[in-house]
């Protein structure tokens, strides 16, 4: 267990790193850099989970996100190999300002809700997050987590497995190269273009 001031320090560092890396994710022009900064951001979120006593979930976050999802992203980036020439032109400054304004508006709404919430106030005067002594020492461990998942939330777990199965089948079906139909489509499109001309 970390001492309180060390916990504060780790949280502050991780929070600043998360904000900076997520800002870099949305502003980089080349998707490779965005993907690498997203990995940094996901790692900081994983550290935050561990600070919140969700140890197993923190490791799952690292394994599933940084280990599986981001590798998928990097594979796709390498497959389509975006170069300076075929990167899409970004929107004008006006459009970016509009998007920034919408995001800022959303943040001010959320901040207003958080600062005025009675529930948050009540929990904060109670000492914020209950101290670790109040919950069982096994909280967040793989044994306690798994026991609860398979006892009380079994149906949710099974439905999730169906979702993943549908995801796999969908991804394979979409990404499959169908030579004949693609050729037909291309010929059809070329025909349409020449007809237009």
């Amino acid at each position, binding site marked *: 267990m970390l001492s309180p001031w060390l*916990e504060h320090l780790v*949280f502050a560092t991780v*929070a600043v790193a*998360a904000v900076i890396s*997520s800002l870099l*994710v*949305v502003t*980089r022009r080349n*998707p490779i850099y*965005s*993907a690498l900064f*997203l990995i940094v*951001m*996901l790692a900081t979120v994983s550290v*935050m*989970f561990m*600070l*919140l006593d*969700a140890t197993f*979930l923190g490791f*799952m976050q690292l394994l*599933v996100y940084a280990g*599986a*999802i981001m590798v*998928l*992203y990097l594979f*796709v980036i390498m497959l*389509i190999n*975006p170069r300076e020439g075929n*990167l*899409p*032109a*970004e*929107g004008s400054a006006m*459009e*970016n300002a*509009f*998007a*920034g304004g919408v*995001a800022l508006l959303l*943040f001010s709404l*959320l901040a207003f809700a*958080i600062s005025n919430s009675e529930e948050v106030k009540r929990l*904060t005067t109670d000492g*914020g*997050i209950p*101290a670790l002594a109040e*919950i069982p020492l096994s909280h*967040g461990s793989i044994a306690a987590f798994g026991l*609860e998942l398979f006892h009380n*939330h079994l149906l*949710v777990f099974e439905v*999730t497995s169906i979702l*993943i199965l*549908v*995801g796999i089948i*969908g991804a394979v079906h*979409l990404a499959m190269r169908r030579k004949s139909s*693609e050729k037909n*489509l291309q010929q059809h499109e070329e025909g349409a273009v020449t007809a237009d001309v």
Partner: protein
Amino acid sequence: MFSLPSILYLSALLFCIGTYGVLARRNILIVLMSLELMLNAVNIALVTFGRVHALGSPAGEHGGQIFTLMVLAVAAAEAAIGLSLLLVIWRRWQSIDLRTLCRLNG
């Protein structure tokens, strides 16, 4: 322990940065990554509230964490489907620009 509002503000800020990415960028890859960013921001809030209400919650001691695990599974499925759609778009038009999808307009 660090205070509850500070984590919630952080979660809100990350969510809004993700919103900006989804709205402003034209690159489908980066829009998908911004979506992952938003899902993670929500996950932070979920785990925090799950931790705060760990005792006496009807969802059980790990309710928030199990919810987060489900969000993780949905994010994985979303990434797989989204990226294969991106591949289809790339093969068809050699472009990862969101505006090429305007051609789907009948």
